[in-house]
Every structure is written in structure tokens, then in C-alpha cells.
């Protein structure tokens, strides 16, 4: 299973973290520190896997961003590498050629998408189209809710004036 997903950029800044196993806030900071040290210092032609405390880190670099996932020893590393790519392709489709800034300013949307790709530390949906449809449904629902809320709050504010 995937224990956590971490996005860091080349400077070691954290862009997104999602923990599927229990880690305390203290452990999380420690993990982030250790990981960014390990991942960022690796050369370009080495493998995308790192042994780490009995687990394995699978990472992949996209422009300035590193996508890292921590998996169990017996998991298939190549598969996880492709899960990362699957996630990136979905982000790309959603944001339209995604870049780091999209994730910085819309980190909650990235979380929503991640929640559709992975659940409980496992790949949830292998079809990009299904995910895109679900995210679109959520967005449209949010839009209508927003409008409703807007109109209601307008009414209230007018009434209370």
C-alpha cells in the first residue's frame, strides 16, 4: 500500500502531502526533512527508487516538482511509478498543462483529485475518464451550491439591513 504521497519542489518546498498511514505531526516533519534530503540529492540517471527504513520511496521528477510515494517492500515499484504518472496526467488534463503554480494556488483541488485517484493507500480508479467525469460533477455541484449560497446570503443581508 501507499503510505504517503509528497510533492516537493527542487528547493525542498512542500507542495502537497497526503498521509494514508498514521504519522504524528512530529514524525511528518522528520519524514519530510529526510525525504527531501534523499530525493533531491540523487543524480539524474539513478533509479527512481530508494530504500528507506524498510519501506521504499518511489519518486519521479516533473520539471521542478518531485512526486514521491512511500510503499511497502513487496510492492511493485514500476507500477507505483506509473501510478504517479497516472495522477500527473489527470492533473494535466484538469488544469490544462499543469505547472507547479497551479498546485500552489489550488492545492485543495489537487487534494480532491488525489482523493479520486487514491483511496486508503491504494489506486482507486484506473480510468482517467471516470475520474474526470467525477471531478466535473463535483465542480458543477459546487458551482450551483455557490450560486445558491450567494443568493441566500444576499437575501439575508438585504433582509437584515
Amino acid at each position, binding site marked *: *500500500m501507499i503510505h504517503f504521497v509528497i510533492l516537493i519542489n527542487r528547493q525542498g*518546498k*512542500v507542495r*502537497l502531502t497526503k*498521509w*494514508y498511514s*498514521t*504519522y*504524528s*505531526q512530529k514524525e*511528518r*516533519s522528520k519524514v*519530510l526533512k529526510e525525504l527531501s534530503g534523499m530525493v533531491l540529492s540523487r543524480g539524474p*540517471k*539513478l*533509479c527512481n*527508487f*530508494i*530504500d*528507506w*527504513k*524498510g519501506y521504499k520511496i518511489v519518486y519521479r521528477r516533473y520539471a521542478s516538482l518531485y512526486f514521491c510515494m512511500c510503499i511497502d517492500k513487496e510492492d*511493485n*515499484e*514500476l*507500477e507505483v*511509478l*506509473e*501510478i504517479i*504518472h*497516472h495522477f500527473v496526467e489527470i492533473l494535466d488534463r484538469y488544469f490544462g498543462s499543469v505547472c507547479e*503554480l*497551479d498546485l*500552489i*494556488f*489550488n*492545492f*485543495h483541488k489537487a*487534494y*480532491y483529485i488525489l*482523493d479520486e485517484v487514491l*483511496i*486508503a493507500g*491504494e*489506486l*482507486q*480508479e*484506473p*480510468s*482517467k*475518464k*471516470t475520474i474526470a467525469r467525477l471531478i466535473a460533477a*463535483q465542480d458543477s*455541484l*459546487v458551482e450551483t*451550491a*455557490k450560486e*445558491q*449560497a450567494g443568493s441566500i*446570503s444576499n437575501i439575508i443581508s438585504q433582509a437584515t439591513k
Partner: protein
Amino acid sequence: MEQLKSLGRELAMGSQGGSSKEFLDLVKSIGEARSKSEEDRIILRELETLRRRLSDPDIPRRKMKEYLLRLAYAEMLGHDASFGYIHAVKMAHDDNIMLKRTGYLTVALFLDDGHDLIILIVNTIQKDLRSDNYLVVCAALVAVCKLINEETIPAVLPQVVELLNHPKEAVRKKAVMALHRFHQKSPSSVSHLVSNFRKRLCDNDPGVMGATLCPLFDLISDDASSYKDLVVSLVSILKQVAEKRLPTTYDYHHMPAPFIQIKLLKILALLGSGDKQASNHMYAVLTEIFRKCESSSNIGNAILYECVCCVSSIYPNPKVLDAAIEATSKFLKSESHNLKYMGIDALGRLIRINPDIAEEHQLAVIDCLEDPDDTLKRKTFELLYKMTKSTNVEVIVDRMIDYMINITDNHYKTEIASRCVELAEQFAPSNQWFIQIMNKVFEHAGDLVNPRVAHNLMRLIAEGFGEDDEGADTQLRSSAVASYLRILGEPKLPSLFLQVICWVLGEYGTADGRHSASYIIGKLCDVAEAHSSDDTVKAYAVSAIMKIFAFEFATGRKVEMLPECQTLIDEVLASHSTDLQQRAYEFQALLALSPQAIENVMPPDASCEDIEIDTCLPFLSNYINQAIENGARPYISESERLGTVNTITPASASHYQQDPAHSLRFEAYELPKPRAPPPSIQPSSTSSLPTISSDLVPVSEATYTTREEQYNPKVQTLADQISAEIGVRLKLEGVQKKWGQQTYSSPSAPSTSSSSTQKATNGMVTSDTIRQSSLDSRKQQIPEVSAEKQRLAASLFGKKAAERKTQGSTRRPAKESQHAVATSAPEPPEEKVVVPAVPPPDLLDLGEPSETATPTIDPFKQLEGLLGPAAGSDVASAPSPSVGAVKTPDLMSMFTETPSIVDSKSSDKGVVSSTIAKKGPNVKEALQKDATARQVGVTPSGNNPNLFKDLLG
């Protein structure tokens, strides 16, 4: 750069829409922060602002949403935002779906399943799982996966199960995954849902079917045998997937649904392992996948690798094995490091089936070993570890140690050190080499190795390799002493290693006469002085000095007290550590004794002699009898007192007791189980009989637990218990519950150690025989080693295939048996021949050692007149007395025939369980057990000579 930033801001403004400028500024300033400390300052300021804002009683809900996202941002950067958690919980309860989603998102980011606030969110989740809007249900299910813990599973389980039939596939899929999570957290909670999973496997939606494979994989890895019927349908699913029968939206880089294929292959690997019939169904589809998979794409290789894993796990078939070997060699020949890594891993799996496969790739393996990439190197060491045999052990272990010396990663260092030790123990060509390797391991990773390794080393030096060859043992010891004296010159040595050194120097420092006593004592004083803060090392040093003095005096020689030794003793006499003090006082007392007395107190080289301890403490029986005559209650063993005759260890027993008090329960109370009858028999009260029988009725037990609670504080000490009157039976129960473990620990010791000594002698016997035979096998192998040591490749893989074959025929069984023990992975049936050769666990032999009647039986003897045969079952459930029951004929004759049969059966169980149960607290015994287990488990080669005889006739 500047342009980029402004672009980002614009972009953010556009897509974020509602977010205020404040939030954008925060993100922006974080983005521009130059250092971590600057970032921390900004976030701390932000958190301060948010704390102030959130304390405002009415915050507009839209604002609140933004605050929560800001909190999530701060939390993501590693800061504590716990003051806002409750607001996230509240927001999840909101009716507006937008706010609700934000609430769920932040709650899932903030809280772990152990958090106190979980209990507040359960109600919200329950409500949302019933919602008409499937998106709300989805949001709730995502939260369920993250937040619901073992305690709260029952609160949502029925609803989640219901959602398995939801019309929307997204909901079904998430419900399946939620159940998968429940299984991880508490396997028993979903064990009754197997049929639901089987049904979901036929779901119309491939996504739901794929998700169902997750819980199925878990269930099958727990118990493959009950799912064998799925093989055919899983194979047909895999076949259809591979033939592109799924909608094209599931294609990924032109591969048909690769993630589903991989999951299916994983499950098939479990189902087919060691099962020829199940494996037969798989060969065709595996061959097809091997043929179809293109190795140009990453995902194709992922499937190929999974196929290799599957092939290496199921019952071997030459055709698919060839395909797997071919795929593996493609990996190894690839330029990509990733593929090489997978290839090394795959090779490690395949050599389990056929060790010769590695030969073809020796150069590739050595390339990987020399590679600068650490990950690849480690993987290769793992492969080498798997293919180690007596011919290449020296090269491999040397390499491993060289690597170990240079790494800083403690976790891996520990692992590789323990592997070195394991290989050295298993295949050591000579004792000198073994000691050398151990010295290196201790020197460089001494603080990381398991203390038992040190104990094994000491034991090895003390016992030697064989009883008949005393000369070799002395030589081994003096070479050990010489190497330790040399190593002591090193500036920094790990504590554990120093303990070994001190012990060996004390025991054998002067034995061969090469070093004078004062020289050794001087060295030991140096050690103690240099490590004045390490009490354990000092204690070892003081004891070692004491031994040397004792040995010298015993042989009539005089040893003068060195001044540094005197200062050391003086210092230790005033030490804060009572242990050190005691050693020093003992030392002083010893010096005053006569040589004969000293020889008796401290006989030279007697560390392997068994010290006989009469664990029955017969000198106390009079006292006990008297006490019982005066109305005291007889001793009741610990497991009996806990009411669980079988195998609950003390730790889990106490957990069981605490459980109801501390956890919240959502389900109805279960019916109380009938306990094993409490062995509370009063010598002078016949009324105990009815109570015993009534204990089997659930209702009476319930009342009796409540009474226990009441009486808890009143009875506290053992003394009270001994002098207790007949009437205070219930009070005693209270003692058992609340205070049982502490109060009874001392009296329970005899029963524990009685079994432990039995075990020890037992273990001694087996280990000796093993050692003996392992020595034989080693001797056979030694000459081969020197011949094959030319090139690294040659030394790792054997020189030529032809030469291998002649050796291979004799050596293969050794290798296979090693794998049978070392790897938990299921082995193909032909290896099973070896398994019986492994000596049976010691526990089974426990009955053998003869034992005299124990005083603990006495109370039962006295009952002879009072209790009829009905009490037989009562006695039978008491572990330690019943050992005696089997042994002592007079007690046996007390019972009618039927109970005695029950007796002997349950007594065996009782002994086994009591030894298992006591493993935790009794360190000495645990160590001993570890040591014997290791010897039994790790030196299987010792049994091989016999095996060869059987095989070769």
C-alpha cells in the same frame, strides 16, 4: 522569474475566484521565502492571525472555509494547527455541499484515526452515508477510509455494506475500498463479508471489480486455501483483460488495464503457490501475457515483472519459467537503472526455483554491485544474500562488511550487520574466520546488532565446536583472546563488543599461559577506566578481574593487586549502581577465601556447566503444608488466575482487562463466555463445589465480575491472601484481577523456571548435536573454498557449470533447506523433503525430563477425601500442578480413568501454553529460547549429512 510570479498570481486569482487577497498573499510570500526559517516565521504569524479570527463567535461560513484552507496549508508545511480542528469538524456537518466537502477535506488532512475528535465526526458521517446526493456519500466514504478506527467501525459498517449495492459505481467502489481499510484495521470486522466481495467481483463496472481485488488480496494472503475456487474465474478475468475486452478508457499507454492485470497477477501468485492444480490453470494466460507485453513501455515492464513474481511463486512449469527467465535477462541487460533493479529483484526470486539461473548473469550482477547507485547496490546485496552458500560466503560477507563500514544509514546498517552475522553463523568455513567476521561486525556496527548475537559469540567461544576436539577449542579461544587484546587498542569501541571482550578475557585471558594475569588485569582496568560512564561494561570488567584473581588463586599462584585495580575497586565500592557495588564487595570477599573455597565458588572454564537448581524449592514444603493446614489457600498458577488456561500472554491479558473500561463500544454486549473454572478450592469447605459448577453459567459470572470490582481495594498483598479466611473467596478474585500480576509474580516464578530449565537442558542437547553435525559438514566444505577464490565472479557463482554440477548434486539440498527456513515464501513441493529433517521444536519434548513430585501438588493430595472425580477437570486445567499429575503415580490413582485422560492431554497443552505465555517477562529464558531457535533454524546444514545418506543410499 518575476514574470512567472505575477503570472501565477493572475492565474490564481482567476481560478480561485472566491479566495481573498490575504490567502493569495500568504501563498505568495511563502513561495518567495528564501529560507525555511523565514517560511516558519510567516506561517507562525499566519497561525496567530487565524487563532485570533477563529476565536470570534460568529464567522461567516464562507470566511470560515477560507480560514480552514489556510490552516490546512500551515499544517501541510509542518506546523501545528490543532486549535482549528474543531471548526473543520463543525464544517463537515454543514448542509451546504461546498462547505461540507471543504470540511471533510480538512478533517481528513488534520485528523488521524486515533484522534479524540473522531467520535464527533462519526455522527456526521452516519448521516451523510444516508444522503441522496451521491457526491456527499462519496465525500463521506473518503473520510471513512481515513478516519474510522477500530472502535468506530461497527458504527458505520452496516451502512457501508449497504452502499455496496448503490446505483452509482463511484459509491460502490469507495464502499469496497472502505471495507478494505476496515479489514486492515480490524480483520475480524469484515470477515463475514466475503460473499459480498465475491459478488462485487462480477460488478458491471471494471473500476469496482478492480477495487474489489484489494480486499480479496488481503483475505487471500491471510488464508489462501479457502479461495481456491476463485482461481478459474480470476484467470478468466485476467485473460479477458489481457485480450482488451475492457473499455478503452481503461487502457494506459496502450496496455489494457495494466493496474488491474497487476493486481490479478498478485492474487494468482498467492493462490498458486505450492498448488500444482491451481497453477495448471494459470500457465496459459501467463504465457500469453509474456508474449503480448511490450517491454518498450514502463507499464509493460511493470506487468512483466509481476508475471515473473507470479511464476516464481506458483508451482514451476518449464515453459513459463523460460519466459520469465527471458524477461528477467531483458531487464538485466537494459540500460535503465530502474529495469536493472527490477531484474536483480526478479533474479532473486527465480533462483529460489533454480539456482543455476544466476550463472548466466554473473557479469550483470557484478556490474550492479559496483554501480554508484546505492539503491541498486543494496538490491544486489539482497540477491547475494539469497544465493550465499559455503563456497562463496567469504567473498560475499567481506563485500557486505566493506559496504557496511561506509554507510551512515543506521536502519540499513542494522539490517546488513544482522545478515552478515546470519550468513557467518550459517556457512562459516572456519572458526577463526567466524571470529574475525564477528569482530568486524561488532567493531563497526556494535551498537546496532542484537545483544543475542553477542551472547551467541560468547557461547560459541565457551563451548567450542566439538567436545572431542579440545585442542581446536583452546586454539580458538587463544586466537580470540589475541585478537581482542589487539582490538582493545582501538580508540572507540561499542559497548556490546566491550562486554564480549571483557567476558572472554576474564574467562580465557590467562588460560593458555601466554599472557600474565597482571597484564590482562591491567587491560581490563583500562577498559573500565575508559568507559567509566558505562555501568554494564564496568560490571563485565570487574567480574572479569574477579575471575582472573580466582583462577590464579585456585592454582596456588599469587597475584599482586595492581594500584589501578585497587583504585577501580575502591571507586566501584562507592558506586551508585548497586549491581556494581555488589560485584566489588563480592570481589573483596573472594580475596579473603582459601584457594579450595575459591575453586568451588569460581571453577575455571565452567561457563558451560549446568547449574542445577531445584526449582521446586522442596525446603519450603513444610512451611507450605503448615500454612495450608492452618487454612491458607493453595498456590494457583498465573494463567489459572487469569481464567484463561490457553495462551493469553500477560500483556494481552492485561489489555483484555483494560479494554472494556477504556474503549467506546457501539455494538451490543456479547454474551459472557464460560470461563475455565477457577481453581479456588478450600480445603475445609465443601461448598466450593457448587460455585465451581455455577461458574459455567454465564449469568453468574456477570454478577461475580461486579463483585470483584467492589472488593478490589480491600485485599492487596500476598500476606493477606495467605492468611485469608475461608469466607473471603471473592476478595481473592479481586486480587487476581487488579493486582494479580504484581502480587503473584514471586510465587509464580518457580513454575516458570521449572519449565525454563527443562527447556534449557533440552535446548543444550539439541544445539550440541547440531553443532557436532554442522562441524562435520563444514569440514567437508573447507577444501573447496581455497580452490575457488580467483575472480570475484568465479567466486560468487562457481567457476564453471561443469564443476558446479558435480558439486551441485551434493550441495543442493543444503541450499534448499536454507531457503525453506530463511524465506517464508512457500516452496515448491520437492523442497518439502527437507522440512522433516529440521529438528522438531523443543516445546514438544517438554514432557520428557523426569521431575520429582512438586510441593504444589500437595494441596490436591489433601483434597483427596473431599472432592470426587468431578474435581478432576478442575485440576486438569491448572498447568503446573498437572505436570506433576502426569508424573506422580499416587496422584494419578486418585482419579477415575476418564478424568485422567483429560488430564494428560490438557497438561501437555498447559505446559506449552505456560512456557509461551512466560516468554515475555523472563529475559533469560527468552534469550535461551532465541539462541536455541537460532541454532535449530539457522544451521539446517547440520542435518544434511544424514539427509545425504538417505538420498544417496
